[in-house]
């Protein structure tokens, strides 16, 4: 009898079924998983799905969808049921993938070198010279060890006969290995122990090997530096770029972080220029060097190609490797493999006709009903069409296009993809699926990741697997045959951090601003909360509202609570939370998963509250709590290197700015602050408890000022901030700036007699105003310090590139 969880699941005609054998029984390698599901029951299944969903959101696993007007990021879609592949079957796949990587690597060497495949007539020149990613300036470039392909991915699908077929190759900047790793991390939390019990092979070694491969490119005794080059946070797979960088312990950089001097590539770091030896790039070929490749690219590194020519940097993958990303190649691969390596291809590919050959064109036209017509090159304005879905006129139009420029089209047989179970509610349902498998170059040949990214169709009928079009993903469990696996994925790659001197200036700048915005948000949230709870008759209310107006939190005729949820104001709390998130996004590769999660939670709390119009005080309570927790992460959850120092400096400087402004504004007014106002100050600065502990009396100006400004044991006091600033600037050491102005301005504040400030007489008023002026002076010197820090440490981040031709 079939167990209940699989009851609604059934085979489909004409497809291979991953779970069920032809007689309807469960394939043996699925048994442990299905038994686990059976015994755990529906409620457990729901909990598992919910856990995965939460982890995805909290870990910030996202996939950017270009066309999504709702926002940049959409949560990654993961179905927690893995695809399971037995050991022996995997051996066949892995051998085929490794072989294919070798062939493609050699093929690139020929296309950018002697081009013998074309002069021998093995490969038509159309599919090379007609491809926009065949980069002429790269002709004649000889990469180190003649290696073009370092990281390779191939899309496979299983035909009805059970064999795996190649659907397409990813040779340029294969995306997805980071998602595969994150999927594993999440799924292993959903099925604890099961991975060990089933002897699922670990993914860890692959990433270690990738890192070693990149760092092994160094020929001399220099400390090697490898970076991950990203187009930036707007790219659809930016999450993965940051994630990979963190997993590999490499700096995540954008084009503007790098510079070419002569024939050497450098990273603009916090402490100056550092030579870069290897790049794992996620930036497309033609965007990489605006001096020689696409002139309209502001994302690249001018002069990079010249460094490659000189053999002084390893690019993974080589510039120009995108030329192999076209379905036209599939049909030519068997003779290419034969000619280059004398080998027969182990993996077949889906039947493909390149229309540039006359007989192929005629075959395609005759059989158009059972074919899908695709563009041969990525820059064509032509979406793949299924011949069977075209009416007579549509067909005629497509055929005319084919005849007009035959070499620009390919046709492929429609392949029935295999199906595998996915969760639908707490039950299983079938979905079509394909897998993306990865390989990396190692000194021992290509090493294949024992796992991968399974991609599933978005609905029952769909056959197209695309993350852009809303399909989902799965973990792939490859079972091990022997007792060879000892690693466990529960402790995936120990997190290695880039060394201090490898910190890109841009990253440090973003950490600094992250610190400033975190503190600014907290100060503003506390200010609003303290003002909101003031009694309507309180004599602090006028001052409270005026201060909120001063900080841009409210406009005069709107209430404080509706201003809180005004998401369009550029100075409101919502705007600063956005800026905090933005700077954190830019610095994401340096934040722990929990730290990053806390920032995500903060955003969600604010937006949920804004959309449901929650109670303002309650919302502020929650935000203050979350922001305070963020401050804890900065202290306890980050390596205390120069990047961290800049983040903390940002926090300290912001706090000085806020506190001095708050107090100086009030003291420059003629009347002395009332008791209610003093209490309001204590509330804003989170010092009510501290005050009560220390003073057994109602708030008085002298004692409140002492606590807020001078008390060395109060971590919120001004004195504490300036001492920390001094310390941090000192620790920046030779690379920092000697700064005594701040100290001197603080001494002015410290040395003032606070006793004379109380009272209503003229001398007190004058004394208060003079003291306010000293606070303002302190604010100005810290401002100047901030500017100097920017000048000293961030000036490398000049970004504006202009390309000019005459």
């Amino acid at each position, binding site marked *: 009898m079939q167990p209940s969880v699989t009851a609604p699941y059934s085979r489909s005609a004409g497809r291979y079924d991953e779970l069920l054998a032809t007689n309807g029984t469960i394939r043996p390698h699925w048994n442990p998983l299905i038994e686990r599901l059976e015994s755990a029951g529906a409620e457990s299944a729901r909990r598992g799905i919910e856990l995965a969903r939460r982890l995805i959101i909290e870990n910030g696993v996202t996939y950017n969808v270009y066309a999504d007007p709702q926002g940049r990021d959409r949560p990654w879609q993961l179905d927690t049921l893995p695809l399971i592949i037995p050991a022996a079957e995997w051996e066949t796949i892995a051998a085929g993938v490794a072989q294919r990587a070798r062939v493609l690597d050699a093929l690139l060497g020929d296309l950018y070198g002697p*081009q013998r495949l*074309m*002069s*021998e*007539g*093995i490969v*038509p*020149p*159309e599919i090379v*010279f*007609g491809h*926009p990613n065949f980069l*002429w*300036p790269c*002709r*004649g470039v000889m990469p180190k060890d003649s290696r073009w392909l370092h990281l390779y991915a191939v899309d496979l699908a299983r035909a009805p006969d059970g064999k795996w077929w190649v659907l397409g190759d990813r040779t340029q900047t294969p995306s997805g290995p980071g998602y595969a790793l994150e999927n594993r991390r999440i799924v292993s939390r959903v099925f604890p122990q099961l991975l060990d019990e089933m002897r699922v092979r670990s993914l860890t070694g692959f990433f270690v090997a990738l890192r070693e491969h990149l760092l092994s490119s160094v020929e001399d005794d220099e400390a090697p530096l490898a970076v991950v080059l990203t187009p930036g946070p707007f790219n659809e797979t930016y999450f993965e770029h940051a994630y990979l960088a963190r997993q590999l312990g490499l700096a995540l950089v954008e084009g503007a972080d790098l*510079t*070419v*001097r*002569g*024939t050497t590539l450098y990273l603009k770091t916090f402490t100056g220029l550092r030579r870069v030896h290897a790049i794992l790039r996620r930036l497309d070929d033609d965007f990489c060097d*605006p*001096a*020689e490749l*696409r*002139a309209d690219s502001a994302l690249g590194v*001018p*002069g990079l190609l*010249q460094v490659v020519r000189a053999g002084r940097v390893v690019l993974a993958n080589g510039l120009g490797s995108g030329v192999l990303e076209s379905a036209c190649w599939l049909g030519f691969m068997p003779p290419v493999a034969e000619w280059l390596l004398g080998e027969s291809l182990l993996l077949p590919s889906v039947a493909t006709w390149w229309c*540039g*050959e*006359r007989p192929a064109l005629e075959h395609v036209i005759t059989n158009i009903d059972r074919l899908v017509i695709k563009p041969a090159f990525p*820059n064509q304005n032509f979406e793949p069409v299924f011949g069977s879905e075209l009416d007579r006129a549509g067909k005629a139009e497509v055929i005319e296009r084919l005849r*007009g*420029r035959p*070499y620009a089209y390919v046709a492929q047989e429609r392949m029935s993809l295999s199906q595998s179970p996915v969760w639908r509610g707490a039950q299983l349902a079938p979905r079509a699926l394909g897998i993306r498998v990865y390989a990396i170059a190692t000194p021992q040949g290509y090493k294949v990741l024992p796992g991968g990214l399974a991609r599933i169709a978005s609905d029952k009928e769909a056959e197209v697997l695309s993350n852009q079009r809303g399909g989902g993903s799965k973990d792939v469990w490859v079972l091990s045959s022997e007792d060879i696996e000892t690693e466990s994925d529960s402790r995936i790659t120990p997190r290695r951090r880039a060394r201090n001197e490898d910190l890109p200036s841009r990253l440090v700048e973003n950490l600094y601003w992250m610190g400033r915005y975190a503190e600014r948000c907290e100060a503003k949230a506390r200010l609003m909360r303290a003002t909101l709870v003031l009694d309507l008759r309180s004599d602090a209310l006028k001052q409270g509202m005026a201060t909120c107006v001063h900080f841009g939190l409210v406009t005069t005729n709107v209430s404080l609570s509706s201003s809180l949820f005004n998401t369009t104001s550029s100075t409101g709390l919502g705007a600063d939370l956005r800026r905090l998130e933005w700077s954190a996004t830019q610095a994401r590769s340096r934040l722990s998963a929990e730290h990053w999660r806390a920032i995500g939670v903060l955003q969600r709390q604010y937006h949920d509250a804004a959309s449901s119009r929650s109670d303002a005080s309650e919302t502020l309570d929650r935000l203050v709590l979350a922001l305070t927790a963020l401050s804890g992460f900065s202290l306890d959850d980050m390596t205390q290197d120069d990047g961290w120092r800049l983040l903390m400096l940002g926090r300290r400087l912001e706090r000085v700015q806020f506190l001095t402004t708050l107090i100086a504004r009030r003291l420059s007014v003629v009347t002395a602050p009332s008791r209610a106002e003093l209490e309001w100050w204590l509330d804003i600065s989170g010092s009510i408890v501290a005050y009560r502990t220390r003073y057994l009396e109602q708030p008085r100006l002298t004692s409140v000022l002492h606590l807020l400004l001078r008390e060395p044991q109060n971590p919120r006091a001004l004195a504490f901030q300036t001492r920390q600033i001094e310390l941090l600037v000192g620790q920046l050491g030779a690379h920092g700036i000697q700064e005594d102005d701040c100290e001197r301005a603080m001494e002015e504040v410290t040395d003032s007699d606070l006793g004379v400030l109380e009272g209503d007489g003229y001398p007190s008023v004058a004394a208060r105003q003079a003291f306010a002026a000293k606070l303002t002076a302190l604010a100005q010197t810290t401002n100047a310090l901030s500017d100097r820090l920017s000048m000293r440490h961030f000036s490398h981040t*000049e970004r*504006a*590139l*202009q*390309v*000019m*031709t*005459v």
Partner: protein
Amino acid sequence: MRYHVRHETSYAYSGDVVHSHQLLHLTPRESVYQSCVSHDVAIEPAPAYRAADSDAFGNTVTRLEFDRPHRRLDVAAEMTVDITQRPTCSEDSEPWERARSRFNYAARPPAEGLLEATRYRFESPYVRIKQRFTDYGDSCFEAGKPLLKCAESLMLKLYEEMTYAPGETSIGTPLLEVLKTKRGVCQDFAHLMIACMRARGFPARYVSGYLRTTPPPGVARLIGADASHAWVAVYCPTGGWVEFDPTNGVKANTNHITLAWGRDFGDVSPLRGVIVGGGHHTLSVRVTVTPRSEDEADDDGEQT
């Protein structure tokens, strides 16, 4: 025919350029009909890095890097070249249909020269291939007409229908837009002719160079003479490359001095640079082409 060419390019920037990479295609290309007697490129300020080598299309490319803040860049290329008549080739080439079929892939080694020519047969960054270009050239490609005659008709059609209008287009103007307005400069004329040839499946390349400034007596001044010039070479499988100047409606002759060729302007722009900083800039370009006096008397002005 001996010429002296002076080509000065100056950038003045409103702010400091802190770093810059420049790519120069300012060395005259050697060929059977053109030899370089002398050439030199003077650069101010002095670059931190300077290297010259051959690009993928066989042109000499000079790479420069500047790493000191500067507000001016002056590049002055000077060259002396000797030019003889280009080899003539029979206009009675084979019909264009048959010529085109020679490019069909047949899973055997392509004929001599064909693979090299095929480089120039497809889309390139500034020359997209569209049906509209095929249609535009329709009247020039009558059935059975020899390929080179077709190319000549196309050149004359462009020459007659297009208006030379300096300053109205830029390198960013889409070619379809040029086809619509029928206005542009030599670069646009050349790109359009290339697009029409490639759309029909023929290799065509972009030639960058100069045109002599002093017209022979009694002959109208040729357009495009005070700047660098551009024209087109079309590949005929039986006759090799033949050069057409659609801006002037003539085949290239001893008045055309060749700097470099490529798939389009982007491959051979005389000066291409990426700068960091610089603010706004003003650009001035001056080209002076002087025939050497002792040779001038020999000039027969045959191009009209």
